[in-house]
């Protein structure tokens, strides 16, 4: 479903701030793969997601989504294949617009927008049903401005928007990191539910190693812009946090003591 072929990306090339963010990265996701991504700060996790989403052009390599070469496709065009949820709850929704307006925008992802009226009655009913599944009471507040919602509510809504039109690939960039533990757990639960329902191919970055093990069918660990560990299926299920720490220490030499990459 997703093929990243020897992706290279260097920021601020040729300056003192030069930073090799992706260094010949290869990744191949099968349809229905739910892959969690872990790695220390600067390992290139977010860069990988942003390269896939097309925020900027990559230096080398090729990106294929569902066998379509999207390497040179601008971000807004690529959006038709992608559902995205961001770390910052403010990023995924338009605060000054109503809940149903946000959903209507998401429902038209990948379509040309013309002068049709934006929300039909039937659509509104569909949204109400979908919002009910979030179990946050948002179905009764459909004309409220999104800016009035809490971070957790906004993340849940963003998740709904990202999956409203079934994406080829769902990109979750630490989407629970800014939430308190209880809310984070709830949003993760919703995430699982949505992914399961539509068998979505997913890349989920997390800082929480337990979450990385508990969710999904595959796990990759990144270090210095490359994947250093890739585990799936039964083997992944048997993993412990200590295994991951060990793997990380092997890969990074003795660096782990002063680079506490992941929390518990």
């Amino acid at each position, binding site marked *: 479903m997703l093929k990243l072929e020897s992706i290279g990306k260097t920021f601020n090339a040729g300056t003192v701030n030069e930073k090799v963010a992706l260094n010949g990265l290869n990744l191949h996701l099968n349809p229905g793969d739910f892959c969690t991504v872990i790695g220390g700060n600067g390992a290139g996790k977010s860069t990988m997601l942003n390269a896939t989403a097309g925020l900027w052009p990559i230096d080398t390599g090729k990106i294929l989504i569902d066998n379509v070469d999207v390497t040179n496709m601008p971000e807004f065009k690529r959006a038709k294949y992608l559902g*995205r949820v961001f770390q910052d709850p403010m990023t995924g929704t*338009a605060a000054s*617009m109503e809940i149903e307006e946000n959903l209507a925008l998401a429902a038209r992802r990948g379509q040309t927008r013309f002068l049709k009226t934006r929300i039909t009655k039937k659509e509104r009913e569909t949204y109400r049903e979908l919002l009910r599944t979030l179990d946050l009471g948002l179905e009764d507040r459909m004309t409220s401005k999104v800016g009035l919602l809490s971070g*957790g509510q906004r993340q*849940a809504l963003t998740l709904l928007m990202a999956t409203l039109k079934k994406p080829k690939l769902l990109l979750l960039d630490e989407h629970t990191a800014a939430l308190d533990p209880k809310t984070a757990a709830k949003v993760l639960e919703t995430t699982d539910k949505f992914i399961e329902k539509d068998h979505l191919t997913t890349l989920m970055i997390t800082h929480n190693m337990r979450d990385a093990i508990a969710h999904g069918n595959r796990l990759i660990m990144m270090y210095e812009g490359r994947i250093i560990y890739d585990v799936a299926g039964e083997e992944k299920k048997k993993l412990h946090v200590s295994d991951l720490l060990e793997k990380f220490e092997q890969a990074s030499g003795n660096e782990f003591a002063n680079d506490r990459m992941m929390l518990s």
Partner: protein
Amino acid sequence: MDILVLLNALPGACAQGLIWGIMAIGVYITYKILNLADLTVDGTMCTGGAVCIMMMTSGHGVGISLLVAFCAGLLAGLATGVLHTTLGIPAILAGILTQLGLYSINLRIMDGKANQAISVDKYDLLVSLRYIKGVAFTKNTIFVVALIIVILIALLYWFFGTELGSSIRATGSNENMARAQGINTDFNKVLGLMISNGIVAFASGLYAQYQGFADVNAGRGAIVIGLAAVIIGQVVFGKISENMAFRMLSVAFGAIIYYLVLQVVLWLGLNSNDLKLLSAIVVAIFLAIPHLKQQHFSKPKNKGGAANA
């Protein structure tokens, strides 16, 4: 200070305010909806008038002249939009560049003269300062412009409710989100800038007719007047409703209030040369109020923040 002098001047101030209200609705689109400060309007506020007057004096009808003025505004917006999006120049600078360029273009439109007059006696004008008193109600400038504003707001309200209009609002509200939802934000910004400047140029066409001449300096400080109208409208009527049609209507009222206040200040004996300074100060104060309020007068409140879902 004869109160009658003031009262006599009020209908004129009201008509001027209404025309600037149209212009301010154009500013509202960029400043509030697209979240861009577009300084192109200082140029477009002259271009529209120049085009309209030159067209009319060469024998075209008022309708077609205003339409061409509107199109000239679209082009000006297009120029700023392309400078900003395709060429990556910050919006404010892009606007200033277009504005500066327009100065020369405006002079060319007006045959190299700094102003071009049009006589209300010889041409069939849509609005004029002579059509304020003693004319049929339907010909009265205040009525005509008010009607135009109602139609304009209805059109814009419809447009910003469509899929395309919504995507423009989303672009202004959250660009990252808009792109993630497959919205071409660059295209939308250009489109928004075009519509905005088209409306401003249309207002400029009306204003030149109203005054009886197009002037190369007609647009100087226009952005400040437009912002003043937007902000006054927001401060005075903002709490009543969040409906967008109402918001645009309050912008138009903001422009009227601005011109009425101006009239009163002139009547009180202020030198008209000092008006621009006064405008700048008023707008600066109103722009600063939200910031100062937040800094000095806000008590710590328990906001329903990220913690509770």
